[in-house]
């Protein structure tokens, strides 16, 4: 009983450490339990809130699980055709250069159908932020093989594992765009642990600052899990990601601005 009164005393507005930001709407996220999309949405919304950019932000979300972004983040969102988000974002940023423009794309979108748009937008050095969620699979449509699927990884269209002889090697999009002169800040992060979530948030905040300074394309890859597509529990999928995804997609900055 004494313990219970103690807890009531702790739960007061002045003791608040953390709460969901107001930019996230109260809609229940339609993502599967444990999906990295929810965490990424939340930290993106937090950065928009902390930088006071709610009325200045235009997001572009193409096809994939990311298409539902408009439901959860209370900023202006433009839907784009599959893979064409960087092209749409280019137009928005050129017409409205004062706005903060970001695209939010999955690996099936950015690395498969949208490869050309992504590479050329980065090569032109468009002043946009590209957030790339890499979970190595087409999550929304039922776990088909994506260009980023690891060798030997099972998916519904590679039931015996990805055979690199017939299906090719996983595409490291982030490494490719890091070699382009148009990109200014390229990094690969994850959202599996509290420390990684904080690092990712810091990376997004940096990208927002660089966009304000008109520096060029910022590209943030977020290696994420897909518990439903990988047919694992959320905790297992995070462990599997650490053991298998991180060696192939090592976390860290690939291109940082020269001082």
């Amino acid at each position, binding site marked *: 009983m004494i313990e219970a009164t103690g807890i009531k005393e702790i739960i007061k507005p002045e003791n608040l450490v953390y709460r969901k930001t107001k930019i996230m709407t109260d809609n229940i996220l339609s993502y599967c339990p444990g999906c990295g999309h929810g965490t990424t949405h*939340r930290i993106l919304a937090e950065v928009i809130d902390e930088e006071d950019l709610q009325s200045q932000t235009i997001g572009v979300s193409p096809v994939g699980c990311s298409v539902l972004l408009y439901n959860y983040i209370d900023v202006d969102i433009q839907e784009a055709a599959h893979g064409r988000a960087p092209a749409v974002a280019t137009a928005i940023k050129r017409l409205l250069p004062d706005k903060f423009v970001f695209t939010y794309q999955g690996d099936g979108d950015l690395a498969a159908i949208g490869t050309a748009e992504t590479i050329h937008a980065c090569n032109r050095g468009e002043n946009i932020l590209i957030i790339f969620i890499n979970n190595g699979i087409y999550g929304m449509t039922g776990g088909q093989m994506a260009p980023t699927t690891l060798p030997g990884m099972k998916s519904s269209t590679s039931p015996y594992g990805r055979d690199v002889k017939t299906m090719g090697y996983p595409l490291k999009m982030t490494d490719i765009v890091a070699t382009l002169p148009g990109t200014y800040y390229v990094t690969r992060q994850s959202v599996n642990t509290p420390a990684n979530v904080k690092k990712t948030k810091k990376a997004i905040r940096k990208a927002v600052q660089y966009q304000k300074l008109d520096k060029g394309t910022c590209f943030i890859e977020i290696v994420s899990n897909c518990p439903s597509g990988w047919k694992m529990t959320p905790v297992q999928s995070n462990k599997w990601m650490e053991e298998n995804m991180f060696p192939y997609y090592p976390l860290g900055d690939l291109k940082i601005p020269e001082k």
Partner: protein
Amino acid sequence: MAKIRGSIVVNIEKCKGCELCMVSCPTGTIAMAKEVNGKGYNYAYPANPELCIGCANCAMVCPDGVITVYKTKI
């Protein structure tokens, strides 16, 4: 020495029972309830509230943003 005490409030109806908060909690405060919420998920709840230190690790990894964290010195 002042002792740091924390407390969490879980939005039970929005919780999807993914257990990521339970794994990230350094003190073992959080456990999954035997009961289910309206969507049929075993929601997270502070099973050992006296152990909470208000580090907000659980809130950081929660994909659905259902956890609110409070912290104070006693």
